[in-house]
């Protein structure tokens, strides 16, 4: 069970951050990911496996300003 955007989420074994993002149908070009307190560089999305007790915040930017 990982904590993603404030909610406890059951995660399947060995799912990477990138796979989770794709599952959620998020647009990679408009997000930022915080992983256990630090920004996760995009280059690491495909390597970082989500573990139990990870705390992840996915910020999805919308247009306007």
């Amino acid at each position, binding site marked *: 069970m990982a904590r993603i955007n404030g909610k406890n989420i059951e995660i399947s074994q060995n799912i990477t951050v990138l796979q989770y993002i794709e599952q959620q149908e998020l647009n990679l070009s*408009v997000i930022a990911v915080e992983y256990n307190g630090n920004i996760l560089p995009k280059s690491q999305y495909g390597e970082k496996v989500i573990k139990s007790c990870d705390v992840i915040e996915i910020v999805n*930017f*919308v247009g306007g300003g």
Partner: protein
Amino acid sequence: MKIILNGKPCNIQCCSIYKLCDIFFKDIQKTAVIVNGFQINEDRDLKENDEVFLIDKHKMPNENEFSAMLYARHTPNVHQKIKNSRVAIAGLGGLGSHIAISLARTGVGCLHLIDFDVVEPSNLNRQQYMICHLGMAKTDALKAEIAQINPFIQIITHNIKINEGNICEIFKDDPIICEAFDNPKEKAILVNGILSQYADKKIVASSGMAGFDSSNSIVTRKINDKFYICGDGVTEAKEGRGLMSPRVSICAGHQANMILRLILGCDNV
């Protein structure tokens, strides 16, 4: 008795502050009176070592007097920190133009303004520009406006489009960065770019402030102590839902206040 009047030591006979004004200036109605950093509206007797500024309300004061007025308006002890601070504002549209002017009024010592665009008529519905600025680069227009508001701060401008390749160089001297773009991809590029390449810079970003939904859904969120985001997070600008001044201003106010809080050492929202 010895006092400091308009920044200079001065020996005077005991008297009240308003009497002092009579002696040095003609008309109390046209004079802003600041005593020991606080603007007063009632008379009292002067005390030894009082620091008094008498400022003509109808004229632009010199730098010391202006600084004293700002000191009087702000909470005590904060003005020096604000004066010594530097903030970059990336994007000078509906958010950035408001934020820049707000921070200039507050007295932030150095503002680094970045945009590539020119002022055009559709900007006037929400951006802090005027008809006389149409066709000007936004960096130049905003710099000129700020010169008419607070001429004692430093303005650095970059008339350039930010991309992944130039973030590191452009923001190298900016401890606090305000993300005030319109395009969500550019927002993501800047936030990821700053936080991945710099361990010690802070960014205050924005997402979701279109239309005229409730003001109360605009919030400031702390993602971590380097990354803050203001807006409602969901209300994107799109066909059928444009950007309108009141709600954009609210988000801009949130960002400007969070930046001020960071300058003053408060890292919670």
